[in-house]
């Protein structure tokens, strides 16, 4: 037992001392967790998202402070101020300088928009106030045309599309305000709108809660995929393993120590990611459930077995690492770990269904309550167990524990 524990300790210490291993084992999952939380966790949240836009008021009557054009300008100017200390304002609004030709300004800003330097340009056309009044007055032919506002955006930019959506909502609110002031709309008689979140709780899952189980599994996956063949094959090729075999240590005991060390590394990785997610990024999910623990354990063992499978099939350490590299991205991205996979073409769905990561990601997310189980629990357990069995079988027949003489 002592040699098993010593081997486990050696495996952990070696992994931590090796800076490259440390990067992929710890730094990269932490980087991904923080980066993706910062990017996707804030989409649509005021104070966290910011756009540069331009606003041109070309209405001759826009100088009337009670006018509609002035109302729009003042709303956008309000949105250009931070809503709370330390927050970014929703917009930085670029306006023409005093005396600047509005046409020249518009040309410049449209060029900036095309070049990705601006998210949108809002133009209040000439005679806007009068057009609003005309639109609200009685019309002989039925409803009069509403006054038009131009919002220039670029479909090549996702940010521009989002900015245009937000501007549309702001203008829609202004429209309701104008209608309310003119007595054509009663906001107090507006229809009630409710949002119902369907899931294990009655709130929307936060992005970090959704992301954390995926990142934990990504960490386990890369540790198994790169760590296991790396440790076995490099030690074999550098004849380190040969030194073990001249001692009374047997292969099963070596495997027991190695596996224990691998599981300890996964536990360490999980602890660090969980603490970071919980205390720095505000994750609220709990892994303290038997099904979550068992899924994590199953994942760590599956990915370790997968690493042995690669080590068995690769002739050299470099070939093993190359194979791991080839499999890494497709297996991660075709599992639903980061992006939804529903709607992929059949040939890619075949990979999704054969991929053990798909079942483990779904199983872990379901067990912590951030996903409804797309796969039955039989599949969540059965498919990874099948991969473990296949890997063990191949490793038992093919894995070479020493370099060929």
């Amino acid at each position: 037992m002592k040699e098993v524990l010593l081997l486990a300790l050696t495996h952990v210490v070696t992994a931590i001392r090796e800076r490259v291993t440390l990067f992929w084992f710890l730094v990269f999952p932490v980087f991904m967790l923080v980066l993706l939380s910062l990017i996707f966790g804030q989409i649509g949240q005021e104070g966290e998202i910011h756009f540069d836009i331009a606003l041109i008021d070309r209405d001759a009557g826009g100088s009337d402070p009670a006018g509609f054009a002035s109302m729009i300008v003042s709303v956008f100017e309000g949105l250009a101020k931070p809503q709370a200390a330390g927050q970014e304002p929703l917009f930085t609004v670029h306006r023409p300088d005093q005396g600047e030709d509005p046409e020249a300004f518009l040309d410049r800003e449209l060029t900036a928009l095309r070049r990705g330097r601006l998210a949108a340009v809002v133009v209040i056309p000439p005679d806007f106030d009068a057009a609003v009044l005309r639109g609200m007055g009685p019309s002989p032919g039925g409803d009069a045309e509403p006054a038009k506002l131009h919002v220039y955006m670029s479909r090549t930019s996702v940010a521009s599309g989002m900015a245009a959506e937000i501007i549309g909502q702001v203008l829609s609110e202004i429209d309701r305000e104008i209608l309310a002031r003119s007595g054509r709309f009663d906001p107090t008689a507006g229809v009630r709108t409710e949002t119902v979140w369907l899931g294990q709780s009655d709130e929307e899952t936060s992005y970090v809660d959704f992301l954390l189980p995926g990142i934990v599994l990504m960490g386990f996956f890369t540790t198994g995929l790169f760590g296991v063949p790396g440790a076995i094959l490099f030690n074999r090729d550098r004849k380190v393993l040969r030194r073990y075999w001249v001692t009374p240590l047997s292969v099963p005991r070596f495997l027991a120590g190695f596996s224990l060390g691998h599981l300890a590394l996964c536990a360490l990785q999980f602890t660090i990611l969980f603490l970071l997610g919980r205390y720095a990024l505000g994750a609220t999910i709990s892994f303290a459930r038997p099904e979550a623990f068992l899924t994590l354990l199953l994942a760590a063992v599956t990915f370790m077995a997968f690493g042995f499978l690669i080590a068995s099939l690769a002739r050299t350490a470099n070939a093993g690492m190359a194979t791991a590299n080839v499999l890494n991205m497709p297996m991660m991205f075709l599992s639903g770990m980061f992006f939804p996979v529903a709607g992929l073409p059949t040939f890619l769905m075949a990979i999704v269904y054969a991929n053990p990561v798909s079942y483990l990601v779904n199983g872990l997310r379901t067990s912590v309550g951030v996903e409804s189980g797309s796969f039955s629990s039989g599949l969540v357990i059965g498919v990874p167990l099948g991969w473990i069995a296949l890997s063990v079988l191949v490793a038992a027949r093919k894995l070479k524990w020493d370099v060929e003489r």
Partner: protein
Amino acid sequence: MTAFRALLASEARILLRDRMALFFTLIFPLIFILIFGFLMGDIGDVSQSTMGVFVAAGADRDLLDRTLSTAGSTAIERFESLDAMQEAVTDRRIDFALSWDGSALRYFYDANRVQENYAFQQVAAGLATDFDLRRQGATPAISVEPTDVGEIATTGWFNLVLPGILAFSVLSSGLFAVSGHLTAMKERKILDRLIVTPMAPVALLAAIAVVRLVVVYVSTLITLLVGVLVFGLRYDVSWLRFAVFVACATVGTMGIGTIIALLVRRPSSASNIANALAMVMMFLAGIYFPVEFMPRFLRAISEGLPLTHMANAMRYVTGVMDMADTEFWAITFSLLGIAVVLFPVLARYVVRPLRR
């Protein structure tokens, strides 16, 4: 010149024999494109979404139908019971749902679709506003006319992702030419043997650069072709700018690889650092996620990364992003400048025997 020709032939043979290197330079970008093309093709695009609708008995169905007729391309699926509709949302047979009971509009979302709900909520907000106005017999006082200023019809965010991946391929190829290939030659003492011949270090660097350049051209062209043929992406490539940019970017990133090779003690560490650096840059350079979605400090970091500017320049030469011509040439010649400054350093300090 003889030395250069011999080295060129040997470098080409090494690359052609190295199946793994060929796989990573030619096939791997294609795998990326195929996976991301299908995964990201319609991200944020609600035009293919389906909304379930349930109207309770006695509620004004006509009013809702008139409102839904303005729902754009969102498909509508009607349900006879609220429970069946909620089940369809949780089973993801539909994307989100709306019920109208005569007093309230209720929108139902799957709480776990965290990446998509924001887009569905945008559609819902528009419908609710429209419904509210219609219900009170009011017509909007102002209307918004969105105008696309893009000069090129794009097929979504993936149209911009692909040139970003091309830029990443160029970066990887240049970085690893020095921080992978050259340092491996050094570690395996192949450089020791070459240096004792009359070969000039510059001839070796030129041979490596030329072979890498050919591979990068072939790889980027195949990737572009797959994007066009498989995903129907549209590009208007300025071939002259493309050719000049790829050449300058390849040698420029070889220069950046030089810095890594100089900073590390063990040559083998160079490829590991280059790998880690490339991966970090890939996620911060706005290749997969728009830079505008990042917090301010990450946007500032992104602005300082060469890959951010390389991706934008590649988008410009493939015609999916506008850029001032002077900015494009500034990026291109900056990369060339890095190569001009660092190649002598590379020849002097990297192409030399491993210290013992």
